[in-house]
């Protein structure tokens, strides 16, 4: 719906202060960056990660004692969907060299590289191939491609600073070193990057980065990358894709090596046994857990399944105590609440302003700081803008962009968002957007190394399911980069492993039995079952009457 009369009158306040804010920008004056001590204080007070009541200590598993979000703990302290003794593992349905769980950016990049290295690949994905957060990434992909002003080393420093210096150094080194190579690879596959007429790539700014290093394809960078690599995967005869078939349990063998997975066909409700010489998990993130009740930018299937599977099999957690709240999610119109507004709007200079039209934070702080500043403005300063649904937000002043970069820039540079808002009768080239932080990214995940290996031989991981490279807070443009760099590495590593390291043995779900035993011994009384697979948004009044629909065969 278009802005209400109340909101329209509040927009007038923003319009009133806009000329002064623009004049400052033209003079090259920026709102002061937040000093380090204030940064620390604001994070502690306002960032949801720091809320003690939002977390609890895990009572079971390899990271027992670790305090993480209640919503994660609920999933990890839960039963398998399966009764392990009821599964006949000798009846293998499909055999593969490399099984890839997850059909997003990381899984697809892994599939391409594994296939190129000679492996027969089976990719199992919960929804359609490409239904993933990669598809939704808007801002772009970081890489130091302009050596006159930038380098992998500067990228390294930015990434560490954004992550509070908690990142795993070797993982970051790998990420920044292989970044330009990944962009070149994508260009070769036909990704239509935004460019100058001579082919030089456009690069934009972003929160927490010191050089314009963001490469984009309009404002649908992730979609353009995803559809291109998916198209390439469809050309490869040795990549078989199983859609609507999420994995519900990893299979190990008698040596403790990963030997495949059990898939669940969502449509026919069959469980299938996949035996593989190596397995790559690229299951993505967790937005649909709605941690602390936050709305989310994530796709429908982002339910942290891989964390559950890997943890049950014995892989430790790393930095999972932090998740990322993207500063700018839609809070009005409520029909699209939670939807991501790319950081690129701030990258090109749009201000964040409060109900009085005042700018209250530098628009390119790292995401955790930016989000905390917005929450403070709304909850403590009382300067949030109320929505008709009774929520609060602040303005992202997009019309500034057309004023200083020329009329038509917003429509040209942000075609995706321009259309979305136009459907609701809002012209974002003329009216600002009302935003609030939204659950966006799983900073941590399962532990792994720079070859994509986990502590379980034969099990590799890549992308958002992994933890370590982003420290406690991922920077803009480092997620698309992560899925492609480490997806490719996992594909190569798995194919290498298949060549001479796989050790065949009797298939086993003993780890699931052991996990169940540990749950029983811990005294946790619950009927929760995980992985979640799909969120449940049914009307509760209807749900109460769906007497048999929510029964799981545990």
């Amino acid at each position, binding site marked *: *719906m278009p802005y209400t009369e109340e909101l329209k009158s509040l927009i007038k306040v923003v319009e009133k202060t806009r000329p002064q804010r623009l004049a400052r920008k*033209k003079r090259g004056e920026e709102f002061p960056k937040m000093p380090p001590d204030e940064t620390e204080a604001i994070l502690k007070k306002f960032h949801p990660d720091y809320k003690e009541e939002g977390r609890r200590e895990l009572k079971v598993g390899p990271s027992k004692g670790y305090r993480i979000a209640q919503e994660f703990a609920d999933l990890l302290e839960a039963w398998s969907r399966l009764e392990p003794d009821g599964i006949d593992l000798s009846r293998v349905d499909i055999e593969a060299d490399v099984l890839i769980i997850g059909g997003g950016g990381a899984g697809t990049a892994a599939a391409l590289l594994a296939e190129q290295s000679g492996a027969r690949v089976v990719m199992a994905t919960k929804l*359609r191939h*490409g*239904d993933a957060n990669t*598809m939704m990434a808007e801002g772009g992909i970081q*890489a130091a*491609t302009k*050596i006159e*002003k930038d380098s*992998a*080393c*500067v990228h390294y420093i930015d990434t560490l600073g954004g992550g509070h210096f908690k990142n795993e*150094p*070797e993982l970051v080194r790998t990420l*920044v*070193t292989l970044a330009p*190579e990944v*962009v*070149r690879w994508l*260009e*070769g*596959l*036909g990704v*239509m990057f935004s*460019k100058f007429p001579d082919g*030089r*790539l456009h690069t934009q*700014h972003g929160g927490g980065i010191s*050089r314009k290093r963001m490469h984009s394809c*309009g404002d649908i960078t992730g*979609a353009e990358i995803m559809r*291109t690599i998916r198209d390439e995967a469809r*050309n490869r*005869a040795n990549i078989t894709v199983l859609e*609507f078939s999420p994995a519900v349990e990893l299979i190990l063998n008698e040596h403790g090596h990963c030997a495949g997975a059990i898939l669940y066909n*969502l449509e026919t409700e069959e469980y299938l046994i996949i035996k593989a010489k190596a397995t790559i998990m690229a299951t993505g993130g967790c937005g649909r857990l*709605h941690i602390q009740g936050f*709305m989310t930018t994530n*796709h*429908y299937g982002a339910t942290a399944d891989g964390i559950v599977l890997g943890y049950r099999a014995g892989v430790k957690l790393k930095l999972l105590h932090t998740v990322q709240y993207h500063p700018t999610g839609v809070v009005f119109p409520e*029909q*699209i609440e939670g*939807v*991501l507004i790319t950081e690129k709007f701030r*990258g090109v*200079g749009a201000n964040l302003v409060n109900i009085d039209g005042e700018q209250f934070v530098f628009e390119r702080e790292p995401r955790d700081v930016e989000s905390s500043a917005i929450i403070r403005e709304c909850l403590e300063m009382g300067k949030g803008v109320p929505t008709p*649904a009774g929520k609060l937000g602040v303005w992202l002043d997009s019309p500034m962009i057309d004023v*200083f970069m020329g009329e038509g820039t917003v429509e040209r540079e942000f075609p995706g968002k321009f*259309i*979305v808002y136009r459907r609701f009768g809002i012209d974002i080239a003329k009216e600002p957007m009302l935003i609030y932080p939204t659950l966006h990214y799983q900073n941590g995940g399962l532990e792994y190394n720079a070859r994509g290996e986990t502590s379980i031989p034969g099990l590799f991981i890549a992308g958002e399911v992994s933890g370590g490279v982003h420290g406690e807070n991922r920077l803009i443009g480092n997620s698309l980069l992560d899925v492609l760099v480490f997806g490719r590495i996992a594909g190569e590593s798995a194919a290498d492993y298949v060549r001479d390291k796989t050790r065949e043995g009797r298939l086993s779900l003993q780890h699931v039995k052991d996990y169940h035993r540990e749950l029983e011994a811990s005294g946790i009384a619950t009927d929760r079952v995980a992985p979640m697979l799909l969120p*449940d*948004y049914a*009307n*509760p*009044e*209807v*749900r109460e009457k*769906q007497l048999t*629909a929510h029964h799981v065969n545990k």
Partner: protein
Amino acid sequence: MAVNKREATGGKKNAEAEKVKLIPVYVMGKKYMVPETLTIMKALEYAGYRFIRGCGCRGGICGACATVYRKPGDYHLRVGLACQTVVEPEMYLTQIPFYPANRASYDFAQLSASPEEIFKLYPEVFRCIACNACTKVCPMDVQVMDVISAVKQGNIERAATLSFNCIQCGLCVSRCMGELPQYHIMQLARRIYGSKIAPRAQHLNEAVEAAGSEKCQQTLEELMKSDIKKLREIYQSREIEPVLADEDWTPAKRDYL
């Protein structure tokens, strides 16, 4: 259940308590009463549907939730994405989460930039009778017929740029008299343009080399060994490129380049 309610009804406790007006919609012909403020997707969930197909990003970019509908007394067939379209009274709707389309397989590296490549892989492109049904049905306002015309004229650049917003939902295929797989043809055109027609970014080669160079790797190793105090100092004193800087801006200090 707080989470469920919030997603399904946009923050409202429940429709009755909040006195939200309920309106009738017909899902594949069957009537349900749903709050008038919801998108089609959230209205279906409100009614009790749990999606397996027909739901993806929920943000208007993945093409999973194409929906066709009619309104009473109107012959016109309307389309929208379920996650982006608000329900209307008496809407008569169905989702089309999948539509079969012929996709050619090719060795992309071996293709040339010639339009003949597309003609060979998709000869049906010439079955287009220019009826424009594809353009009319596109929920993303892509000028689909113009894209196909551009392909037929051998103008791959135009086909690529005009089709950039395609989300591959498949509705164009469902309406095509000539039985073309428009979205697959457009995908091929974009890839050929991006890789083989648009000028390549030459600076990528030197960047790849610089990142892998001994000098860069040595500096990285030093950084990896530095303690947090030192790293903080380096981080805080970074020179930040101004947002309005021109393309030829270079930093005053050449540290870490």
